[in-house]
């Protein structure tokens, strides 16, 4: 701070508190709604203070789900989401580490072509190639399967670039020393490169876990069997049924549960999260 201006400092806190209120309020309202009974949502105004049905609502939605929506219990969908998010994050990191290693530490014909093919994926989000991608997955018989949910999403240009940038900063002497000592390429990769990349891998994992968890359109397309529903897509079905019956308390409990895992990851791994976010976008 350059100078002492008490009024400006007061204003600063005021702005930030207003900002926090804007950011937190929608979730607060959802949480409050999830602690009430169904009678509160028939008419009039939504409740603004906590009610007595917290445990009851959450255990209902966790164990039984919403029978009228055709979606399975929340715990099934949470497990599917967890599996999908972790598999996408691990898969993206694994194949990107390998391809970045190939591009940086080897010279071979078509190296530039391979680099450009990977780069192009940046320009082809699922949204612009919905139907043909669906057709490919259907032809491979991967509809309603975990492979179908995961595999098409694990190509990653950003992760490859991040590791490429990082490998370029590693001193050449390390590799030369390893070669003098008789280490082959895979031994160098496993015993030197991987341990050095630990922080980058962790930061990237946080970002990619969130990426996997919040996927919506893709699970919506490839799963029709409710056993494979993820929480983020299943929740839309719950919400749609809340429009006809007053089940807001259960829907909002599901909403809170759906956002909890990735939000906790951001809050508790904030440093890695910020590092991952800022570096992948460079």
């Amino acid at each position, binding site marked *: 701070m*350059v*100078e002492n201006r008490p009024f400006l*400092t007061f204003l*600063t*806190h005021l*702005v*930030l508190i207003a*900002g*926090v209120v*804007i*950011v937190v309020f*929608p979730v607060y*309202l959802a949480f409050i*709604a999830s602690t009430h009974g169904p009678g509160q949502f028939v008419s009039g*105004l*939504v409740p*603004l203070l906590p009610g007595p049905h917290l445990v009851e609502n959450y255990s209902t939605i966790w164990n039984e789900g919403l029978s009228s929506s055709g979606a399975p219990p929340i715990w099934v969908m949470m497990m599917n989401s967890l599996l999908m998010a972790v598999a996408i994050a691990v898969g993206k990191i*694994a*194949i990107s580490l390998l*391809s970045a*290693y*190939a591009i940086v530490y*080897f*010279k*071979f014909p078509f190296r*530039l072509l*391979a680099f450009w*093919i*990977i780069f192009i994926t940046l*320009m082809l989000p699922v*949204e*612009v190639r*919905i*139907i043909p991608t669906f*057709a*490919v*997955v259907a032809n491979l018989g991967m509809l309603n399967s975990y492979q179908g949910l995961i*595999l*098409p999403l694990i*190509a990653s240009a950003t992760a490859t670039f991040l590791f490429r940038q990082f490998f370029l900063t590693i001193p*050449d002497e390390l590799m030369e020393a390893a*070669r003098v000592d008789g280490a082959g*390429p895979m031994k*160098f990769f496993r015993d030197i490169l991987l341990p050095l990349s630990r922080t980058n891998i962790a930061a990237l994992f946080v970002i990619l876990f*969130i990426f996997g*968890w*919040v996927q*919506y*359109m893709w699970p919506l397309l490839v799963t029709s069997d409710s056993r494979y529903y993820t929480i*983020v897509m299943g*929740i*839309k079905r719950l*919400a749609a049924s809340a429009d006809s019956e007053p089940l807001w308390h259960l829907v909002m409990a599901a*909403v809170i549960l759906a*956002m909890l895992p990735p939000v906790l*990851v951001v*809050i508790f791994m*904030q440093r890695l999260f910020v590092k991952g976010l*800022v570096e992948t976008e*460079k």
Partner: protein
Amino acid sequence: MQTKRTIFPSKLLPYILLAPQLAVTLIFFIWPALQAVKSSFEREDPFGFRTTFIWFDNYRRIFADPNYLSSLGRTAIFAISVTLLSMAISLLLAVAVNRLLRSGKVYTTLLVWPYAVAPVVVGILWWFIFNPSIGLAPYILRGLGISWNHRIDGNQAMILIIIAAAWKQISYNFLFFVAGLQSVPQSLNEAAAIDGAGPFKRFWTIIFPLISPTTFFLLIININYAMFDTFGIVDATTSGGPAQATNILVYKVYTDGVLNLNIGSSAAQSVILMLIVIALTIVQFRFVERRVQY
């Protein structure tokens, strides 16, 4: 392209290392994209038995379709509003946090987590707040003499998705603005203060111009976000309605292709979206090149 001074001599190994990434890319990205381009030039008969090559007919039809043109306009309004609203709020918050020393960290933690909330969940949260029968916002607006029903009023539906989409993006913009502000040398700020410039003058004449690379970068990222990552928000709040009022391009591709099975038209729309992403990506990467020299 850069490599190491010494490299491993292996001939086959690099191809094996690249194989998984390239396989996934070719099967699930490049091939479907080529298919989309191909079917954008074709018409399929209603039973799917025969396809005829029809050159640019699908494109011609799209650009003659008032629904598509209005969707294009609405997407522009949506993207620009989301970008400006979200960036303005985030910049204000970032400047505020940057003034503080210790408490800034607490505020940062409280502000960044919406990044991790799925767009469709964001949509449901705001849909609940603006629910015409029990929502809090319509209740307050009724007190002010405004009747809110985004199921009937197209403009209100648009406002709803703009607010929801901007809310989600605050945390992202905030983090990048904070990073940008921290890279501004403190000495410049102090020198200006010694010369008698007040905080507001210092912000507009020194800090704001110096963070312009961040601002420009965020501009591109936000437009990209508003155009492509908001599918879940639209699907959860308005489903493109009422009367196409919030049917933005990415949602229209989905409804035309997946729900109405109009493959040719949907493919042509996909190709147009692809061109938009390619343009945005090129702008973004050219800018990054320049930022290095900045």
